[in-house]
Structures are given as structure tokens and as C-alpha cells.
């Protein structure tokens, strides 16, 4: 007897541009006490499915075109809002992606956790508070009695997500909808949250519908997996079956294109190596196995074993410190010094990639920016090609700007929305006097675009007309427009779907080989860093805790922190 049953559900969005079939005829079910993972890339319809069930979609533009959602033998889709409210938060609870914005900053934690009990049940405040504190202990908040009286800003991101879970579970629901609950968290925190969810499921017997884009998380947590693609379910089944022998080409591609800690390829396979998408005139599409997928995969080269090219260091950083002053406001706390980068030494050889890993707030981004002099360093030396950068004025720095570039995390924010692609790419050339006239520069940017895999027809478009992956290619092209030799990649694939991420990583690899580029590759994702780097450094609290050859660090980590990080990475290879 299944707890939740979705049958032929269709949710369409009616927009001016036409009908968007966000959820198109999907069926699946969840049994009592089961964890089902719904996996898909952005736009696959996984969140829309969740929101449709609880009547949380704005209608219009959304419209449920058909199908049914039965929860405990009750049809949810036609239920009036008043009855739905009795189910929401009581029998079905939801937790969201961003724990920072989901808690009310003006209410004490205890008040927020007791609120759902007081709304849905006829109990006294004292009972509610006891239950709330009990639940806080269950989700692993130590010293719950005292901490219940504090405000959300006194909690870290991971702790807030635990509060969210406590809030969702305090009414003892039968089903928990978790929409990307760990996406915004660091790996070590994510590992702890996943563990808590598992033990809660065993303790309380709740069913969990876990929506995520991360296959690793699903493999770690779910009993069954539903894979969605463009509004349809392409495959569903037991977690083990799906990961061991996926049958649909999309799922095969999705599993293969994600770099793991044991990836040995020089270039990652992409979903396009497996899947052929045929789009018909009416907007529907047919997916089929790519005819030469085996041939394509066999062409993938084995990863070169970190060639010990004996080259002189291009960049040498020693004793670099970046401090920030915080507080000291009008009524604020006393001034504090935040040591974002606290005495870092590193060196990168020409043509190599140095990976920089660490969790959020460890100072890795600040370090990258300080090397490029986008952030003032307090002390230390930055020796670039035997020139000390730290003493240069911003004017003198301009000559080095041509040689050192940066690619940012968010391709949406890193392009000027009011410039066409042509303007964006030509401007750096004009500033640095590359090319002699317009037509000469235009020819150069056309070949540049080709190099990053885009056609000349895009030149006159604006950034918002592109997808995230395409925009990141444009950012790469802009960085290359000044013909640099060193590029800082600051979390440059972190905001992307795995299939797009694989393409961008491959692109960076190819460009490195062709132009002999040197990268400082900054990321929180250990598998991605391992795939990209020759050498790796691990940062924590502004300091380097470990550095060395990538292979060595990943196989024989020396520091406890590195070990903890490596253990926290969800593994697709099943250990259960």
C-alpha cells in the first residue's frame, strides 16, 4: 500500500512564449518509511512536481492539466486550500534549499519550531515546547534547551538546516518533501545532515521524497531513484540497479559525466556521448541511444600521469595575508580582525594546474582575488614571472592584467547585461591594444568564440539569451580575449548541472593544452579539483593544511581535515 501515489501528472506553464511542459505525464509512488530520490538537472521539473502536490504553485501561469496525486487514499489535486492547509505541515512537511532565508530572523528558534505544533494540534504551549526541544536533540543540536532561546543568526548554515528539519518533523508527518536540502551546504555538513535524515527515517518511520541534482547524494541516501529529464521520467527503480546497470542512455550519461574521486579520464564523457535528442516540430522530443556511443567512449584518453615537466614556477606566493576589519559600527560590537588569508605560501609552474580546495569561508576566493590584486593584501609577496606584484600601483598592474585573468562562479552576474557578446569580447582588446581595427578584432573574436564552442551568430545577442553553460563559455572567451597565460578559475563550474559542468571542464582542459595555460582552480568540490589538477592545496580557516601532488593527497591524505573532507564526499559506488 503506497503512501503517496502520483499518476499521469501533467503541469504546464502557460507563458507568452508558449506552453512549457514542466511536468509531462509522470507516475511514481512512495511507500511508508521509504526514501525516494528524484534526480534531475535544472528545469527537469523535479521541484515543480513537489510544489504541485501541495498546491504551492502560482496558478496561472501554472496549470495542472491532468493526472492525480493521492496521499493516503485522498486526492490532493482537487482539495480546497483550507483542507490542504491541514495536511501541509501536519502530515506532509517540506524543507527547502536555502536554510539562510527560510527561518524568520526575528523569532527565537523555539518559537519557530513550536509554531507548527500550535497551529495543527490542540496542545498546551509547554507540551509543544518539550516536544520541540526533544526534536532538536533528535536532529543533533547539542545543548538544545539553551540554544532554543537563541535567534537564527546565531546558528551556522548546517545548524539552521537541522532547525528546518526539526521544524518539519515536529508535527510527526508521514511524508517529508526535501527540495535540495543540502545543496547550499559544505560537504562535511552535508554528510552529517544525510546521516541525520537516515536515522530519523529509521526512528520515526517517515517517508522522504528527496529532490536533488546530485547523483552522489541520492546514491548515499535513497532506497529508490526516479530520474527526470525535461519533465518526463526517463528511468526509475532501485538505487542499486540504477547505478549499477542503468538502462536509459541519459542516465548512463549522467552517471558517467560526473567526475568522481576515481575518474581516470583525461577528458570527461558528456551526456551527448550517450544520448541523441530528436526534437520534433510540435516541441515534443524523442530520446534514443547515441549510435556510436561505445566508439565515442573508447576515444576518451586515460588521464596523463602527472607529467613531471620540469618548469620554472610562474607564480610564487609567500606569506600572503589578507585581513578584514569587521564590526565597529555606530552601536556595534568592538572591531574584530578576520584573518581571511593567514600566511599562505604556494607556487604554480607554467602550464600546470594548482587545485585549491576548502569549504565555504576558508578564504580560498579571497586568496584568488588577492593574487590578482583585486583585493588588497596586508602583507606577503606575490612573485609573478619574477615581478613582485604586491608593490605595484593599480596603474602599473594594468600590464599584468593582460597576462592574468579570472573566471567567476556565477555566469549570470559576470557578464554585463547591457552589452552584446561582441561588445563584451571586443572591449578588452581595445583597452589592451590587441588587433588593429574593427574587422581585424571581429575576426579574432569569431575564432575565439569558435574555440569555446559557440558560433558567430551569437555575436549580437545579449547575455540573458544564453543558458548558464553558454554564458560561462562567453566568460571564458572574454578572459582569453587578452591572451593571458594564467587564469584563476573561481568555482567556475559550481553553479552548473553535471552535464554542463563536464563540458566546461573539458573545454578548460582543451584550452590549457592548446594555449599552454596555467590555472589556479578553486573549488569546494573535491572530485572536480582532482580531475583538473596536477597539484592540490587544501585550505582551512585561512591557512593551508596540506599541499602536494593530487594523486598523493587523494590517496594518502596526511591531515585529519583532508581525511574528513574526502570521507564526506558522497560516493556513487554503493557501499550499503
Amino acid at each position, binding site marked *: 500500500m503506497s503512501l503517496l501515489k502520483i499518476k499521469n501528472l501533467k503541469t504546464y506553464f502557460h507563458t507568452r512564449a508558449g506552453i512549457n511542459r514542466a511536468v509531462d505525464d509522470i507516475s511514481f509512488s512512495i511507500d511508508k518509511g521509504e526514501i525516494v530520490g528524484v534526480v534531475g538537472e535544472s528545469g527537469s521539473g523535479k521541484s515543480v512536481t513537489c510544489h504541485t502536490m501541495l498546491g504551492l504553485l502560482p496558478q496561472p501561469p501554472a496549470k495542472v492539466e491532468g493526472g492525480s496525486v493521492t496521499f493516503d487514499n485522498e486526492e490532493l489535486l482537487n482539495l480546497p486550500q483550507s483542507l490542504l492547509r491541514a495536511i501541509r505541515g501536519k502530515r506532509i512537511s517540506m524543507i527547502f534549499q536555502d536554510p539562510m532565508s527560510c527561518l524568520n530572523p526575528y523569532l527565537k528558534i523555539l518559537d519557530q519550531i513550536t509554531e507548527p505544533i500550535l497551529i495543527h494540534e490542540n496542545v498546551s504551549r509547554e507540551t509543544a515546547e518539550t516536544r520541540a526541544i526533544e526534536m532538536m536533540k533528535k536532529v543533533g543540536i547539542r545543548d538544545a534547551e539553551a540554544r532554543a532561546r537563541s535567534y537564527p543568526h546565531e546558528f551556522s548554515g548546517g545548524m539552521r538546516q537541522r532547525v528546518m528539519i526539526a521544524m518539519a518533523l515536529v508535527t510527526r508527518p508521514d511524508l517529508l518533501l526535501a527540495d535540495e536540502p543540502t545543496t547550499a551546504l559544505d560537504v562535511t555538513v552535508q554528510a552529517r545532515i544525510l546521516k541525520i535524515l537516515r536515522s530519523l527515517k529509521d526512528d520515526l518511520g517517515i517517508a522522504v521524497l528527496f529532490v536533488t541534482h546530485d547523483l552522489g547524494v541520492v546514491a548515499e541516501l535513497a532506497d529508490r531513484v526516479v530520474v527526470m529529464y525535461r519533465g518526463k521520467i526517463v528511468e526509475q527503480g532501485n538505487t542499486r540497479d540504477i547505478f549499477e546497470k542503468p538502462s536509459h542512455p541519459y542516465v548512463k550519461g549522467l552517471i558517467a559525466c560526473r567526475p568522481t574521486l576515481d575518474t581516470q579520464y583525461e577528458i570527461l564523457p558528456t551526456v551527448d556521448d550517450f544520448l541523441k535528442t530528436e526534437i520534433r516540430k510540435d516541441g515534443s522530443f524523442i530520446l534514443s541511444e547515441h549510435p556510436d556511443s561505445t566508439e565515442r567512449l573508447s576515444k576518451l584518453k586515460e588521464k596523463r600521469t602527472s607529467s613531471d615537466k620540469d618548469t620554472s614556477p610562474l607564480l610564487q606566493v609567500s606569506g600572503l595575508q589578507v585581513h578584514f576589519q569587521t564590526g565597529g559600527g555606530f552601536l556595534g560590537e568592538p572591531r574584530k580582525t578576520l584573518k581571511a588569508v593567514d600566511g599562505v605560501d604556494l607556487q604554480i609552474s607554467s602550464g600546470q594546474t594548482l587545485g585549491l580546495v576548502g569549504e565555504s569561508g576558508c578564504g580560498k576566493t579571497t586568496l584568488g582575488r588577492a593574487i590578482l590584486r583585486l583585493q588588497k593584501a596586508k602583507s606577503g609577496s606575490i612573485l609573478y614571472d619574477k615581478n613582485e606584484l604586491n608593490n605595484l600601483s593599480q596603474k602599473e598592474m594594468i600590464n599584468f*592584467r593582460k597576462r592574468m585573468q579570472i573566471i*567567476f562562479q556565477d555566469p549570470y552576474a*559576470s557578464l554585463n547585461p547591457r552589452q552584446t557578446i561582441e561588445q563584451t569580447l571586443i572591449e*578588452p582588446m581595445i583597452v589592451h591594444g590587441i588587433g588593429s581595427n574593427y574587422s581585424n578584432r571581429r575576426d579574432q573574436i569569431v575564432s575565439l568564440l569558435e574555440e569555446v564552442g559557440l558560433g558567430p551568430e551569437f555575436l549580437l545577442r545579449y547575455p540573458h539569451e544564453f543558458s548558464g553553460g553558454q554564458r560561462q563559455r562567453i566568460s571564458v572567451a572574454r578572459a582569453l580575449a587578452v591572451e593571458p597565460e594564467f587564469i584563476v578559475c573561481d568555482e567556475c563550474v559550481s553553479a552548473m548541472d553535471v552535464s554542463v559542468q563536464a563540458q566546461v571542464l573539458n573545454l578548460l582542459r582543451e584550452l590549457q593544452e592548446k594555449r599552454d595555460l596555467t590555472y589556479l582552480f578553486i573549488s569546494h568540490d573535491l572530485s572536480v579539483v582532482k580531475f583538473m589538477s596536477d597539484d592540490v592545496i587544501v585550505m582551512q580557516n585561512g591557512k593551508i593544511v596540506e599541499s602536494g601532488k593530487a594523486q598523493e593527497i587523494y590517496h594518502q591524505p596526511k591531515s585529519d581535515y583532508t581525511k574528513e573532507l574526502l570521507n564526506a564526499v558522497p560516493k556513487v559506488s554503493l557501499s550499503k
Partner: protein
Amino acid sequence: MAKNKFAMGGFWVIVVMFSLCFILAWYCKDPNQVNLTNKFAPSSAEHWFGTDALGRDLFARILYGGQVSILVGLIATAVSVAIGIVYGSISGFAGGRTDAVMMRIVDTLLAIPFLVLVIVLQATLSDWSGDATRWIVENFKWDKEFTGRLTNIVPLFFALGLLGWLTLSRIVRAQVMSIKEREFVEAAVALGYSKARILFRHVIPNVLGPTVVYSTLTVPGFIMYEAILSFLGLGVESPNSSWGVLIKEGANFLETEVQLLLLPGLFFSLTLFSLNFLGDGLRDALDVKAAKD
């Protein structure tokens, strides 16, 4: 913008209003012709909107008044937008001490009642208007009466414009500060662009949208201020008229001759509505994203 019906409607109303006030006005009756035997005349073939308390043709007065009101709105807005964008963006972009000093100046000016400042500045500017009239008449041989009317109004335009940018500069500053944090600005720094280039090519174009909307909303505000000043006897002086003056005069006869208030009021509010719709449309048109959808 062509798709936005309200904005296009607003645009055409403004066009009609313009042609009425600036073209048709030259062909209608003298707005200052007093005829005390024919006061409060109802509308007729000769006087379309009837006549006022002094027997002057109301239609002609509305059109002539419109010239002053529309010009006050547009010129004062243009002056204040120009100052506000430059001042606000420099303040927001420079940050630190420069920003603090520039904003304290704005705070100081905001702390003094706006009308007091306008009156003082207008009085200062008006001191020169007599000299200016003489100079123009001598050197350019313009009509003396026309020049006199012009130099009476112009100080008001600039007094409003030179002081009306305060709020706008704060809006621009806030916008600039948020745009400045975006990664494309940092990318521009990393690419070695100069500060001026970053400010004028990357930051300011991105703050124009909200600025334009805000500034279309200030046009009615300036028209109102002109009316208030005229009411106090400090703004437009006879024989000039403006919508504000007409509404004020009409208000005296609210109980008996309500059309003296309603008709200028109708022109006034129609123009203000249209400006607001036009502002919305302009914002969409200036937003590359909305324009292409």
C-alpha cells in the same frame, strides 16, 4: 515598447498635448485679453471653454499655461537627472570618504525645507534676470515683452532643477553600490579597464532603468511645485499663466463656476497619467531583458 498599449497611449496623449500647447496656442485668442462685460461666459463657438472671472478665454489660457507647466516639468527634470546621475554615481562608485562627504552634503540640503531653498535660489537667479533681459534685447533684438516673460520663468526652471536631484542622487547611489558588487564589474577590473570606463560603460548603463522611471515620476512633482510657488506669488507672474495658476484661480469659484477648476485640472491630470504610463513603458524598453521576451 510598441506592444505596451498604455505606454503608447500615454505617448500619444503627450504628443497631442505638446502640439496643442506649442503649436495650436499661437493660433488661438490672446489669453490676456480682459473683457469684464463677458465674464464667466458659458462655452460657445467663440470661447470654447467659456471665459474666466476677468472675461479671458479659458481655452487659450489653458494652452498657454500648459507651455509653462510642461516646460517646468521637462527642463527641471532634465537638469536634476543630469546632476543626480553624475553626483550619485560618483558618490556610490568612489565609496569611502568621498562618498561620506558627498552624502552629508545631500543630507544637509535635504534637511532644509525644499521650498525655502527653491525660493532663495530663485530670488538669486531672478536678480540677474533684469540684466539678462536687457542684454538679450540689445544684442539679439528680441521682442522685449517676450524676453521679459522668458527671463521671468527661466530662473524657476533652474531653481527647481538645481535642487531637485537630491533624492534621485541617493537612488542612483544605491543602485550603483549594488551594481558595483556584481562580478562583471570585478571582471572589468581584472581586465584592466580604467575607472572612468567601468563607471560610464559598465555601471551607469545598468542604473538607467530605475532612474528613468523615477524621473518620469518627478515631472509631475515639479509641475506641482511650480503651482505651489505661483500660488505663493513667487512663481509664474502675470501675464504668464500656468496650470497651477489656473487651478488656483479656479478654486476660488469652486461653488459657482466649477469648470474653471475642472478643465485645467483635467489637462493637468491627463498629462501626469500619461507621463507615468510612458515612464513604465520606457523602463521596459530600456531593459534589454524585458524588451526581447
